[in-house]
């Protein structure tokens, strides 16, 4: 075990995965010479060469689109989108080709590409460096989506994505890139896609979260400790979802609060709430509540704290449920 920050764990993963499979290559804006604006790809160009850690033109659709062609040539490209909102030009390729191409060949040709990007707010950044766009990606058929919340999962889920035969999109909580440290297994470390993680056990309420909202859920659980014991489920893989883990965590307490940083309407939390409505109604003691961002553009940073889900808002939601 090594004690690493979240972004160091990602870098560690790359060193391991590029070392074990010569078809794996990293590509994106500033990933080579600079080692990535967050240093996620630091040292790769020196170690593996400029053809395996490629500084590309500034063209997100070109990056994902050429990665589709690289897959046809037998590579396993890992594409970095420099920031969440910079990925929007690439949604064209993601939706029209990445999620459909295998299907279009009757399953005869694989597209094992990975897209990863830092996401989320709270970092006092300019506009469009703060988005949580996971719902667009989750809604795209043929694409898997995972969001780690710890350094260990950041390494393990990325390794799983790189080795997966299907396209996978990983969102990394940039708020915790450097502020979170944790134990990370050395060498090869894979966290299988499609498995939720029980962060802590509790009896009175279940907090369901992923990515940067998991530490927030833990803080909220601490704040509630004298009144209620909270179970926390980290979804980890949004698609495919570990539905059994969700239903079990909901049944255990009968009260569910879903925490999601993205805007509320048709966000991923709505999908979780719908599944609970369909399959857990008799286990529930009250309505499923959501604590989310609002249906507004992500704000300028002087008021971003008012936008972001907070401990106070989570505690408030839990209190409403306990009194229901």
């Amino acid at each position, binding site marked *: 075990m090594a004690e690493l920050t979240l972004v160091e764990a990602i870098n560690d993963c790359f060193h391991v995965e590029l070392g074990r499979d010569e078809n794996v290559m990293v590509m994106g804006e500033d990933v080579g010479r600079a080692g990535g604006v967050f240093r996620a790809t630091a040292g790769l160009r020196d170690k593996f060469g400029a053809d395996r850690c490629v500084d590309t033109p500034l063209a997100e659709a070109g990056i*994902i*689109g*050429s990665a589709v*062609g690289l897959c046809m*040539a*037998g590579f396993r490209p890992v594409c970095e989108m420099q920031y969440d909102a910079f990925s929007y*030009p690439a949604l064209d390729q993601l939706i029209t080709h990445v999620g459909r191409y295998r*299907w279009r*060949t*009757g399953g005869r040709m694989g597209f094992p590409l990975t897209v990863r990007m830092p996401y989320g707010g709270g970092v006092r950044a300019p506009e469009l460096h703060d988005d949580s766009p996971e719902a667009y990606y989750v809604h795209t058929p043929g694409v898997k989506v995972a969001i780690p919340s710890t350094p260990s999962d950041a390494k393990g889920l990325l390794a799983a994505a790189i080795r997966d035969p299907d396209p996978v999109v990983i969102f990394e909580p940039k708020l915790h890139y450097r502020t979170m440290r944790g134990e990370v297994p050395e060498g090869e470390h894979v966290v299988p896609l499609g498995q939720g993680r029980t962060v802590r056990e509790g009896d009175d309420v279940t907090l369901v979260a992923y990515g940067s909202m998991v530490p927030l859920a833990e803080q909220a659980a601490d704040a509630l400790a004298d009144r209620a014991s909270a179970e926390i489920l980290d979804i980890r893989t949004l698609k495919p979802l570990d539905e059994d883990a969700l239903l079990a965590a909901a049944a255990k307490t009968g009260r569910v609060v879903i925490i999601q940083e993205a805007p509320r309407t048709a966000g991923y939390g709505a999908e979780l709430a719908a599944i609970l409505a369909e399959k857990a109604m008799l286990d529930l003691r009250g309505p499923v509540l959501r604590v989310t961002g609002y249906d507004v553009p992500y704000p300028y940073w002087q008021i971003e704290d008012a936008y972001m889900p907070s401990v106070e808002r989570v505690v408030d939601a839990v209190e409403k449920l306990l009194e229901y």
Partner: protein
Amino acid sequence: MAQVLPAERDLRRVIGDGDSVPDGEVDGLTDHDLVELYRGLVLLRTYDERSVVYHRQGRIGTYAIYWNHEAMQAGSVYALEDGDWIFPSYRESAIGLLRGMPASTVLSWWRGHPAGWWNPADYNVASICVPIGTHVPHAAGLAWGKRLRGEKACAIAYFGDGATSEGSFHEGANFAAVMRAPLVLFCNNNGWAISTPVEAQSRADTLADKAVGYGMPAARVDGLDILAVYEATREAVARARAGEGPTFIEAVSYRAAPHATADDPKAYIDLERVEEERKRECVARYEGYLRRAGILTDEMAESIRAEAEQAMRDGIAAAEAEPPADPGLLFEHALVDPPASFDADLAELRRVLGG
């Protein structure tokens, strides 16, 4: 740095008019090659004309007509090796026939049947790209990957004049140039993007001028002249194999048929001009060249046409003999490793369907 070369201004031409303009010839092409080029041309023409009939008979769905584009497709593909990759748009839907793909596969595609799926690696022909220009980055990536692997194969991407307005064309062309990808960017400029004339598409004097901005050379050819198309593509392929990167080819023609079976161009096109163009169409032009050269006899022409017609008869029969697609196919193929919900959804669907 890539060298910025001036784009060629004039349309290259090899075939004369049998009158004041003399016929030229292409170095290295044998009589056998000249006949094989004709065979490809006739196969594509037959596919297209039969498809329009099949559509009218309700045997295939909406179909994108490529009548008078055959010289661009057959001429350029003949300049490739079998290991080279083809990235078609919907206008080149039947280009796989030149690589031995059965007509039934392409007809099934236009029938909306899963038998129209193919493995691109079986023919080195990518899937038909429906959204405009979004396959250009794929071709750039494949070609770049071939270079990274040290293979000699190159790629060719086909797109129309309208596609040059798309962002993905730009990103793909620029990627190919920067990565020195062995790629031929083949623009079939037929003057129309459905109802929008090329003059409303770009203020550039020629579409080939765009190549200058990417630091790649360009050639302009008469798109109705299969030999000029072949020769220009052969040069571009040689550059690609020599590690010199991509080339842009602008093949100029005129769309002398509707955009697709669902389109009625009477509302926007000059019908007299269309009639003029139909008289200059590419198959008869090449046939005239071969006859003047004494290479093609009536018997050969008849036999090549009969062979193409038989391929179509076999193709539509096989496509129509495909069993109805099972609903289970909904859930196959999108993912190697489908989620458990797919099984549940299919079971539920079968229960409701009563199957």
